[in-house]
């Protein structure tokens, strides 16, 4: 233990003293390691493969096989702690695309070593983790980017420019929805609203179940969790809201210049302590910002959505995923102003925002001393916190309290002020061997 502290000190402090991460001139390549490379991580690694992929880490070498084969020169690991320790000198930056419950411990371990971090959405599994990760990144001056690639799109910019240009007047109400965890109405991406399986099938070859669990509480392996379907389980995933919220709330956050919500309320189908509910509606109240009035943000998932706006023409699609801004002077479905008459009358908003070189490129540029990426953790942290706060309201014991109150949120002190027992869901104890 004594030695461990010394080792940690030795590996972190010098960089900090030296002023953070290695300076990488634009002409050089960033040395990148991947943590969790079998699923979305494979895509992320592919998107940064203009750089040097020096090391890859996955707890399931079977699922990671494809990515391993595409990068035969990268050294392979199962435990990100071992990789970061052994490859410390060789790694400039880390791409984290593990299940949600491992994001924070992997990211913060890297950040404390002065590594730049690209982390999949949602930034973390809990509100507290999101706060800690964002603070650490700021302190260690590393370049960061969350994996909500839509932030780099033209659509996100058009939404901002339309609203800032006055296309729909003041916005007091926004609705945002996804069909997830459903896929359409007759299939699912992953199950929610189910209980814990009782059988204990053997752990597959090539999967290190203990490392997969990471900081989460111990439980026996089951294919109900891995791969991908961990999203529906409280201990590992963050439900439909966590999966999609950081994508679809991001443009709202930017356009309406949102800061932490004042309160949150939720309604959902029967929910248990194992999995997220089948369908939910989560409502956030935000205060006034500058000359923008208070706004209510309604999130819907599992097939729920707001009413079709009368301003849509017959036959126009009101899809299974979308965002509806309700302003004093009109509405916007995504960046499309409705009704059509208002869209024509308004025309195009002035182009005031810079366009992106690409979501992953933004991060690479930032790693090389360029400007911060669009979803750097100073932006992504508060966004992820709000998303994850919605999940606190869906917890079975908290949902019951919501018949009488909204959860009032004191963001500065990271505290739900009127339902104290809800604060236990802002963070959790880690298993031994894991810490922030």
């Amino acid at each position, binding site marked *: 233990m004594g030695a461990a502290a010394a080792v940690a000190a030795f590996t972190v402090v010098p960089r900090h003293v030296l002023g953070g991460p290695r300076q990488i001139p634009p002409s050089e390549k960033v040395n990148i390691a991947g943590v969790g490379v079998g699923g979305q991580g494979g895509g992320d690694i592919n998107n940064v493969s203009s750089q040097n992929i020096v090391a890859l880490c996955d707890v399931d070498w079977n699922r990671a096989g494809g990515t391993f084969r595409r990068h035969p020169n990268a050294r392979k690991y199962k435990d990100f702690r071992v990789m970061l320790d052994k490859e410390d000198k060789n790694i400039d930056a880390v791409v984290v695309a593990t299940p949600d419950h491992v994001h924070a411990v992997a990211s913060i371990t890297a950040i404390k070593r002065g590594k730049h971090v690209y982390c999949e959405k949602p930034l973390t599994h809990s509100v507290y983790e999101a706060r800690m990760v964002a603070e650490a990144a700021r302190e260690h001056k590393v370049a960061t980017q969350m994996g909500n690639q839509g932030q780099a799109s033209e659509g996100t910019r058009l939404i901002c420019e339309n609203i800032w240009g006055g296309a729909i007047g003041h916005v007091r109400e926004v609705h945002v929805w996804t*069909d997830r965890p*459903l896929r*359409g*109405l*007759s299939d*699912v991406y992953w199950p929610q*609203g189910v209980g814990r399986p009782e059988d204990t099938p053997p752990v597959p070859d090539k999967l290190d179940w203990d490392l997969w669990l990471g900081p989460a509480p111990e439980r026996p392996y089951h294919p109900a969790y891995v791969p991908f379907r961990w999203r529906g389980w409280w201990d590992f995933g963050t439900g439909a809201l966590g999966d999609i919220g950081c994508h679809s709330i991001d443009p709202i956050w930017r356009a309406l210049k949102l800061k932490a919500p004042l309160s949150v*309320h939720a*309604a*959902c*189908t*029967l929910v248990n302590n194992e999995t997220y*509910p*089948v*369908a939910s*509606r989560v*409502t956030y109240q935000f205060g006034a910002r500058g000359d923008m009035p208070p706004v*209510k943000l*309604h999130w819907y998932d*599992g*097939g*729920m*959505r707001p*009413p*079709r706006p009368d301003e849509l023409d*017959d*036959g126009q*699609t*009101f*899809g*299974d995923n979308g965002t509806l801004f309700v302003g004093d002077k009109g509405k916007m479905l995504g960046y499309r102003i409705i009704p059509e008459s208002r869209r024509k009358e308004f025309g195009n908003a002035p182009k005031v925002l810079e366009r992106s070189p690409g979501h992953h490129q933004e991060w690479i540029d930032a790693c090389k001393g360029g400007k911060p990426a669009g979803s750097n953790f100073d932006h992504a942290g508060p966004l992820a916190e709000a998303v994850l706060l919605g999940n606190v309201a869906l917890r079975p014991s908290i949902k019951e309290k*919501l*018949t*009488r*109150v*909204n959860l009032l949120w004191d963001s500065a002190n990271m505290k739900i002020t*009127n339902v104290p027992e809800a604060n236990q869901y802002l963070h959790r104890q880690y298993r031994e061997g894991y810490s922030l």
Partner: protein
Amino acid sequence: MRDIVMANQKDTGKQKFKISRRDFMGAATAVAAYTIVPSHVLGGPRRVPPSEKLNIAGVGIGGRGAGDLHEVGSENIVALCDVDDRYAAKVFKSYPNAKKYHDFRVMLDKEKNIDGIVVATPDHAHAVVAMMAIKMGKHVYCEKPLAHSIYEVRKLTEAAREAGVATQLGNQGQASEGTRLVDEFIRDGALGPVREVHSWCNRPISPRGIDRPKDTPPVPDTLNWDLWLGPAPYRPYHPCYLPFSWRGWWDFGTGVLGDIGCHQFVSIFRALKLGYPTSVEACSSGVNSETAPLASIVRYDFPAREGMPPVKLTWYDGGLMPARPQELKEGLRFGNADDNLFIGDKGKMLGHRLLPESRSKEYGRPPRVLPRSPGHHKEWINACKGGEPAGSNFDLAGPLTEVVLLGNVALRMGRQLYEKGLKLYYDGPNMKVTNLPEANKYIRSEYRDGWTL
């Protein structure tokens, strides 16, 4: 082909027709005319003076029917019918003098002295039972929803009007003080013009969002499965359907909306004088051809009525509900069990409580302009004895139930509506969805051979 027995009894005698279905289809119009007209010509059902007791029969008595029979216990309970001996055993026992039947058709045929019947079967059998009774000139109390399909509801409503029988739907809340207060607040202008109403119910009891079972356990000795199925398409017996859990299965029940919508919409319909909506849309947590969804939201657009502006009515079930209104002070209950929220230009009302509390206190009670009810079942008994029509007689309950069931039409369109987020445009008088004709298959349910309205 299965034989059909249609019967018509009057005080003066009886005609009985035994015809094959093939013949029947051709002769249907003539027969229908023949079976209804005589009663009508003779002035409809037997006149029962207020001093006398009605002779009442119950059909479907094991569950909710038992409660209904208890509520009309001041009258003579002369006959009882149920297809499930075990489920109905206790109720059979508590009426030792009532004749017992499995088949309502046999009961109505044999028991000449019945004045009125109480129908509390599963939804899919309401219409065939109620219709046979109506055509025989019996008064009918029928549990909600009035029937399983919009088409059935329309036919029942018309038949009851024609036969001149006293009717009442089992939405007992219609008789309550609360329903009158809602109406009186709105008449008094407490909310100003109402443009939006939200109604929700979290009734989690019946299984939904599941597929048909594949195993085929044996039918219990105590159950007549064929009669339980009645007009519904044949399928093998399974305990997942009964008792009670049929509600979630499209072939038998009508989901939470059908179960509860007629209760919760009645105060909205009355106070806002609603008729048919112009359109309906729905979303849900996933819907299949077997069962209703676990959770759903159904939205209706109603046109302007008698000086009232167009109004949007939103239904939520499965735990979904609207966001907590800002006017509701922290600590006051905004429960997910069930409630209605009215939003007017001048205020909001939760159930029959004005929001915020301060406005409720300041306003007090609206002027009492509506007559109060002697009780929901009593209304029907009075109507059977020549009194005024009951509060939820089929002329009122029919259109209400049609609107409720129209929500299920939208839900059952599932993906087709969901992906593009379309509305169904509805022509109420003609019972037709005008923009997506494939939806019209859900307006009327197919009957098994041997069953007809």
